């Protein structure tokens, strides 16, 4: 087991000595979030005071070098509990504001939060994004109480989102994770999570902090690693997720590469686990589900289809290397001929993803090239989904996503067949046991 400590600044070390220990830790990774971080800090403070008044709690802001004063806002944001009907706050909320080291990205920020959680021997932790506008104090309860009182190790968020919000989640991360590992976690890359202190220590011990996990791959890695380690997993209903709009010029290709790279790397790592898994099962959902209006999302279909068509023409030699002949032929044959018409059906999309995963594993070309070459395919699939769900309600669109998930599960034998020459014997899914900390061995922290 790797017990090396993540480097922290001298000021942070001093603060850790002052705080000494805690029961609850809430982490906020940030980078230039001055507009919203104050609201997030207030929601966390109120949530802790209202729902966990007797617990020692620490708020950690792990910042990536903001130039807009984000850390200062975190440090000075105050809450007047008088008007929030909170009269019995028994312990003060400690704040630790620290920069993080390592590759710039959300994963490295989380690593620092995990390290502080380990040093302070936190029992339950939660992380929330700093760009949230819809976070409420109840989110803190919903992310932490399943760990504090119900014995769960990992709490994934469950949001209400617009049907076109979270397209990587809907077309790739959710269906693939569900088909591979058999757990229906609707938002595996949601951004807000609750987890036990023991699980945080397990995360820290993995040698992944120089990979895609250190960036956007952290969310899917945390979810998959929790499942693979045998942790008890649940979801909490958080309502609508509204956050500051991302930079429209943000590099989709890089984002997709990091998420897909983490997904495929985890497939390699946990081959024994997913190749034995059949079907999927629901994951317990805490909280009170309700309907809520969500912000409309403008979609530029023409641009997405144009990208896809250019890929089909210009990247043909590369796609032919990644995809099987049959898949590529289907892809070429199913295209419309005019305007923004683009139809990649569920079955073909699943074959594309499974072929890409196999090609990634077989290292048929530099992995960066392979992953980046999939961007036009993803845009084509997104355009197809938008095309198929235009005029549908969010519930009806959700049914389409459910159908895609079933296709991923149904076609899993195709993946296994291509992944390895001889398909493994079908074995019933291994039961998940609750964890105990393994203090003596290097392998597996959960039993």
């Amino acid at each position, binding site marked *: 087991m790797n017990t090396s400590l993540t480097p922290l600044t001298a000021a942070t070390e001093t603060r850790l000595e002052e705080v000494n220990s805690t029961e609850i830790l809430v982490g906020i990774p940030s980078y230039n979030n001055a507009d919203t971080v104050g609201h997030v800090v207030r929601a966390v403070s109120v949530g802790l005071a209202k729902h966990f008044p007797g617990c020692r709690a620490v708020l950690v802001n792990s910042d990536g070098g903001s130039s807009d004063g984000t850390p200062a806002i975190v440090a000075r944001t105050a809450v007047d509990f008088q008007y929030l009907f909170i009269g019995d706050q028994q312990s003060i909320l400690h704040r630790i504001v620290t920069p993080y080291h390592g590759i710039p990205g959300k994963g490295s920020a989380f690593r620092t939060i995990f390290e502080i959680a380990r040093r302070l021997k936190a029992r339950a932790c939660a992380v929330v994004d700093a760009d949230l506008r819809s976070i409420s104090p109840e989110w803190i309860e919903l992310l932490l109480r399943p760990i504090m009182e119900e014995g769960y190790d990992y709490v994934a968020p469950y949001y209400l989102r617009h049907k076109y919000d979270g397209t990587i989640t809907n077309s790739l991360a959710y269906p693939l994770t569900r088909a591979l590992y058999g757990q229906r976690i609707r938002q595996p890359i949601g951004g807000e999570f609750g987890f036990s202190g023991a699980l945080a220590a397990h995360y820290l011990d993995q040698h992944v902090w120089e990979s895609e996990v250190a960036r956007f791959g952290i969310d899917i890695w945390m979810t998959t690693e929790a499942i693979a380690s045998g942790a008890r997993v649940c979801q909490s209903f958080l309502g609508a997720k509204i956050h500051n709009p991302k930079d429209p010029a943000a590099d989709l290709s890089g984002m997709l590469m990091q998420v897909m790279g983490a997904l495929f790397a985890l497939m390699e790592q946990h081959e024994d686990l997913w190749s034995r898994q059949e079907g999927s099962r629901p994951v317990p959902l805490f909280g009170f589900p309700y309907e809520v209006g969500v912000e409309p999302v403008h979609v*530029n279909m023409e641009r997405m289809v144009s*990208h896809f068509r250019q890929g089909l023409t210009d990247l043909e030699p590369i796609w032919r290397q990644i995809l099987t002949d049959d898949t590529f032929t289907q892809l070429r044959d199913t295209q419309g001929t005019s305007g923004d018409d683009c139809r990649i059906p569920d079955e073909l999309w699943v074959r594309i993803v499974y072929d890409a995963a196999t090609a990634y594993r077989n290292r048929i070309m530099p992995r960066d090239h392979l992953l980046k070459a999939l961007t036009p395919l993803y845009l084509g699939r997104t355009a197809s989904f938008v095309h198929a769900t235009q005029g549908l309600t969010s519930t009806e669109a959700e049914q389409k996503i459910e159908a895609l998930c079933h296709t991923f599960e149904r076609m899993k034998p195709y993946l296994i067949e291509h992944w390895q020459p001889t398909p493994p014997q079908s074995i019933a899914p291994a039961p998940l046991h609750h964890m105990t900390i393994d203090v003596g061995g290097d392998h597996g922290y959960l039993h």
Partner: protein
Amino acid sequence: MDTFINQALLKPLELLGLQVLNVLPNVLAMGIILLGGLFTAWASGSFVERLLRVIGFDRLCDRLGMNAALLRGGVKTDPSRLVGRSIYWTVLVLASIAALGALNLTPINQFAQSLLAYVPHLVTAAVILLAGYFLSNFVSRAVLIAAVNAGLPPARLIATCSRWGVQALAGAMALEQLGIAQHIVVVGFGITWGGIVLAAAIAFGLGATDLAKGFLERRLVGRSKPGAVDDLHHL
């Protein structure tokens, strides 16, 4: 009569015999070196070919696009065999030079020495060309993918230019290494690239003013045309 026979006929024959006897060991040595070289060439060629097959050299070349390039050039032999045969012929040529040297004839010795002195340059040039080829494949694929993802219509043209650019650079370096028209290569290369860059700059400045303006506005001011991109949240 006896004197005539001795002087005119037997003496030259005797001289010829002596000369043949003098050269015979050298010829014998040349034959032995040739036979040894032939065996060494065969053994080393076969060994390297098998070794490359075992370590998966063919698969590596396939991933790097070498096999496809060879097929395009009409070469149907796999890369392991190609390398094996190259080693066979290299050893054989070296053995032949050594064998000719065994004859101990001044012009042949001089030729062999100058040829041997040139071999390191040949090897260096070959390595440069090979590295340039691999690099050009890598660069052109990366450029092609990036250009397509950026939605640039002439993506293939840009990728092809980058491929030929890297290969031309490697070719120029190889020629310089071989000592062939060093100055002409460097000057020619500079003029060609300078011309291309100048032409591209003028074409971009005159023909794509709006594009340049839009690009700079987006980069420096952060402005973009409304509706040009969607507001999808992918994650």
